[in-house]
């Protein structure tokens, strides 16, 4: 465990140095991400100048949903960024090096790069989450906070499962291009509370592509709107998805054919 932390740290430093070497591009990405965060935040605040509630949620509550979406999304980006290069890692043979070195190739692949810029977006998001909590004192207690944190972690775990599955497919077929981007675009459906969608869409987003479980459930649990049954369902779902994706990954490694040099 300690070893993996040290390896992660070296990868992080190397990634940071890489980003420094193309600082102009990095600054552009960072600014873009901050602009997106800022404008959507303004948008939500502006909407509530003209309405009192969104499906029964107040401004602070809606903002909490939005921030939770960002939290799960950014943390997944920060830690599993490497998957975005899965195809390149396989095609250029980097995976071969991962496989012959004594560290988990899955870890090497997922954390192959660390996007430090996401630290800069994560910090304001965390600060805003704290501020939002203070605007919702009637909901704030040990249990609500506990379940919020637990479900955010659970959401990150589901994101991990999806990333692992995508990596496995990349290793296996060597041709699935950009699958992870489709996940990322679908993920934006979780930007607003899941309650806005029609029931059919809600079911799809809960059971088929569990974006609601990742982004909306934590906030719902905090606001006391999620039954214990659904909380247990979330944990069951993430465990099932993780084991499924790990199975897929092991199978993929067995079928791995390496690329000819």
């Amino acid at each position, binding site marked *: 465990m300690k070893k993996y932390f040290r390896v992660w740290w070296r990868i992080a430093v190397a990634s940071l140095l890489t980003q420094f070497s193309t600082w*102009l*591009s990095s*600054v552009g990405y960072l600014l873009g991400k901050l602009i997106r965060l800022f404008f959507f935040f303004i948008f939500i605040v502006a909407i509530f100048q003209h309405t009192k509630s969104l499906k029964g949620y107040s401004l602070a509550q809606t903002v909490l949903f939005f921030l939770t979406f960002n939290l799960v999304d950014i943390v997944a980006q920060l830690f599993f960024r490497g998957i975005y290069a899965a195809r390149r890692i396989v095609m250029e043979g980097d995976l071969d090096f991962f496989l012959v070195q004594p560290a988990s190739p899955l870890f090497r692949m997922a954390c192959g790069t660390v996007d430090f810029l996401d630290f800069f977006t994560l910090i304001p998001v965390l600060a805003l989450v704290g501020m939002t909590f203070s605007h919702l004192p009637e909901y704030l207690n040990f249990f609500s906070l506990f379940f919020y944190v637990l479900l955010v972690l659970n959401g990150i775990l589901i994101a991990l499962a999806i990333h692992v599955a995508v990596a496995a497919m990349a290793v296996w077929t060597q041709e699935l291009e950009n699958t992870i981007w489709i996940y990322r675009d679908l993920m934006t459906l979780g930007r*607003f509370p899941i309650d806005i969608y029609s029931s059919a869409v809600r079911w799809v987003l809960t059971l088929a592509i569990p974006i609601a479980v990742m982004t909306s459930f934590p906030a719902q649990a905090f606001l006391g709107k999620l039954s214990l049954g659904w909380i247990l369902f979330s944990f069951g779902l993430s465990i099932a998805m993780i084991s499924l994706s790990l199975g897929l990954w092991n199978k993929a490694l067995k079928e791995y054919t390496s690329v000819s040099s």
Partner: protein
Amino acid sequence: MKKYFYVFSLSLQQAMQHRASLLMDRVRSVALLLSLYFLWSALMQNQDSFLGYSRTQMLSYVLCMNLLRAFVLSTHAWDMVGEISSGRISSYLLRPIRYFGFCLARDFSQKVVFLGSALLEVFLLLWCLRATVYFPGSWRSVFFFFVAVWGAFFMYFFLAFLVSSLAFWTSESAGPLFCFELLLQFTAGVFFPLDVLPPYVQGWLHVLPFPYLIYFPLSIYLEKLPLSSILHGFMMQGVWMVILGWVAAGVWRKGLRVYMAEGG
């Protein structure tokens, strides 16, 4: 003229070949379309109007935004960045074809594909949700709308061309492009009608070219603007078109000189 038609048809075929990346582009749009559509329909459940938009108008804004985004804000100009850094651009310059025209034809093919897909998406959504679309009361609005869309088309073409030309000076334009595109989409009114913003921010934005890309044509379509504002908008589109076209051509020529001087 014929050769530009060939570029158009070749690019069209290429787009069909790269279905995976087409799918990706469209999934992004569909996700945005769905989330915005449901957001507004949830917001307007309990109130008949929002910022002067009726329920039908607001939902039509989102639906038509998807179409306009596909037609106006789609471009192959970002390919130019790759072509410049890999040096492939020289091969275009050596052929008896104008790069400007080449890009226009290539963009047009992208727009046709995207628009086709966007129309399908909107119809599917309408069919599934049995929603109604706002239709302008007078043909004059329809006419003005189409004029504004073409104005927006050229403005965006020049703008994208201009921004991509920056690749002549730096190999790291990917990040700035990402940033620019997001800023443009917000200020053009893709994510929300600009009426949502405080009036002073709106006034400030309307000096920039961006609102005239999406928000302005849609406002005409939804008949939210008096004739005087429409004419004022056309004037702004015209002025910006000239400025952007002129600057884009100048920057391109200058960039090309820098590029040639460095030996590509």
